[in-house]
């Protein structure tokens, strides 16, 4: 309904924001701000979904936006902060394979290659070039998430990398096709379980075996007998 020109500008602006947050996540050193940026990114995605809902009118998008808002912007960062307080770790300064500068260059290169690959399929998959751009940014966000996983040391940073990949896929699906809502919901649940297990294991890594159980108690998983 709203004028397409303004719609394109808003969407492009949101794209820039998404890429900004992605780059920040890659280069961020302190974990607390890392989780905040992740929350912002999810929030932007929710807005993107709402904007698309306004444009195309499919009710599904609204549910996805709502779901992302609740789960990804509020609940997961809260859970991550809580688990961060338990662990003594505050900063993740160790970088493998890619320093922040080189990882930015590589993500730019990645964006270009993904665009080059998706270009010759654009006709059948996307309605117009904006949606193609959205899809390309989604896939490159996934690739960036993967880069985070292999270039950072701490498990929590790797989990955030995994979450960014998840956001990338969500962005891709927004611009690609209206997935049935049940699938999105199941994917969200599955995402949450993965994070839960990884954080529990992250605790296991940091602590020695004896104290491993004591820490579990804090999560109520342990029965005091």
């Amino acid at each position, binding site marked *: 309904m709203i004028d397409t020109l303004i719609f394109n500008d808003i969407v492009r602006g949101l794209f820039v924001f998404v890429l900004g947050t992605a780059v920040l996540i890659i280069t961020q050193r302190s974990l607390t701000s890392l989780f905040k940026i992740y929350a912002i990114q999810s929030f932007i995605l929710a807005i993107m979904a709402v904007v698309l809902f306004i444009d195309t009118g499919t009710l599904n998008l609204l549910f996805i936006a709502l779901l992302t808002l609740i789960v990804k912007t509020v609940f997961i960062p809260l859970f991550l902060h809580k688990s961060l307080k338990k662990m003594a770790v505050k900063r993740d300064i160790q970088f493998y394979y890619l320093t922040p500068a080189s990882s930015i260059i590589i993500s730019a290169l990645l964006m270009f290659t993904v665009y080059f690959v998706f270009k010759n399929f654009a006709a059948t998959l996307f309605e117009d070039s904006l949606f193609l751009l959205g899809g390309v940014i989604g896939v490159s966000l996934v690739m960036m*998430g993967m880069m985070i996983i292999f270039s950072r040391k701490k498990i929590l940073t790797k989990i955030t990398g*995994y979450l960014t990949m998840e956001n990338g*896929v969500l962005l891709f699906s927004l611009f690609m*096709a209206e997935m049935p809502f049940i*699938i999105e919901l199941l994917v969200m649940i599955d995402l949450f379980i*993965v994070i839960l297990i990884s954080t529990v294991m992250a605790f296991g890594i940091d602590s*020695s075996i004896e104290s491993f159980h004591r820490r579990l108690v804090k999560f109520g998983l342990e029965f005091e007998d």
Partner: protein
Amino acid sequence: MENWIPVLFAAPTLLIIGILLSFWKSKQTDQADNCSLSLFTIIHTVIYFGISLWLIFAADLPITLFDNEYFYIDALSGYEILITTIVFLLVSLYGRGYVSGLIKAGDLDAIVLKFFYAAFCLLELLLVFGFMSNNIALLWIFIELSTIITAFLIVTLNARENILAALKYIFIASTAMIFGFIGIIILFTLSQKVIDGGSLNWTTLMDIAHSVDPSILSFAFIFLFIGFAAKSGLVPFHTWIPIAYARAPSIVAAVSGIVLNLGVYGILRLYAIGNLAGAGEFLKNFLLVIGLLTVIIAAFSILARTNTKKLLAFSSIESMGFMIVSIGIGAPVALFWMLFFQFTHSLVKTLLFFCAGIFRRQYKSNKFDMIKKPFQLQPLASWGLILGGAAIIGTPLFPIFLAKWNILSVLVSASFPAFVVLLVCFLLVAVGFVLFFIRAFNQKTEEEIQPYQVPSNMKVPIVITICLIIAMGLYIPSWLNNILLDISGILGF
């Protein structure tokens, strides 16, 4: 009427998991707990085995369940369910004695026991539902969940390296699965182009395959292939398998050998669709290249192995690579023998893990230089290992020789260089195994080692598996023959 089949599967699991979780830490000793808990698991696997037998013999396949066709059982999924349930049954029988050994050795503390068995039963449920699910996204989710459950099973030994191994498993598998999900989205949009609501069911995709644009279908195939490849341990994503198998307890390793089948099942279905859509040429070369790469890398790394379980891990990778190559050939004969190979390979791999488990309990380490006087201490396990090794190498009396002979005879005309490379790799694998066995079984030692008392319920499954393997090596039952024939019919090879 058919709608109650998934319920039939789900009900016992939920019931047993409920009992297990509510199992209060009673007064008896840990061993007693273990007996009762493992009893529940055995009941659970027996029920599953019963249902799968009923599915294969009694029910007239294919059956679609629920109105929106989320669950669908045809000959292929029935066959895969049969393999899974047989292996789980054998593993649960073996597990009873093995876990009591773990507890006695203090590797596994009793608290985690009920979670262990609950996860074990849940894993079986997930695998069966994975094979039954008609919708690719549903299959995707079940695969994700199976990764998590297997990772949890690996962690039960709560040693630091186990957690690292589990984390590696989760991260490699789920990152690749995310790419799989991108593939699903592409596939969904493609199906939307053809039929209005768009669907991800295998059956509908098979029907509309001929009207889909083949190049984009193979593009989606590649993304999905990355996901399934990580799950079935093909070359670039296979690196978690040796670490996970070496750290995990043997029954978990045996079971996760079956989880690999789920990945190969997905690739097979996808290839069938791609073949119908006319993208067969590209997919064949793609699968051949990846398959050969996997076999080569696995064959070479088998040569330099010192750890028994890692040796078995690499031989699993090599077998998966061989299966992918035989799918890549695309001839119905190759498919027939590839499925036969899948069945026999799972059995042989389970046998090998059982024996490796006994050796692990006896010598407290997987390294081959710790194995002293194996024939005196563990005669059954050492003979099981030798027979299993001979079977994996492809010596005639065992079924894998039949599969190799026939697949290679088709591969000769498909592509000669691949044929020669594959043969050389089989030679390397055979040499790797024999080098390992000769060095392991001939260590000289003087000091007296008291043998680890192998309870009889661990011996029974080993003997059963050996008899099954030799029987299949010499005689292929008619019912198996017919199932494999109509599978190649269904998949349109």
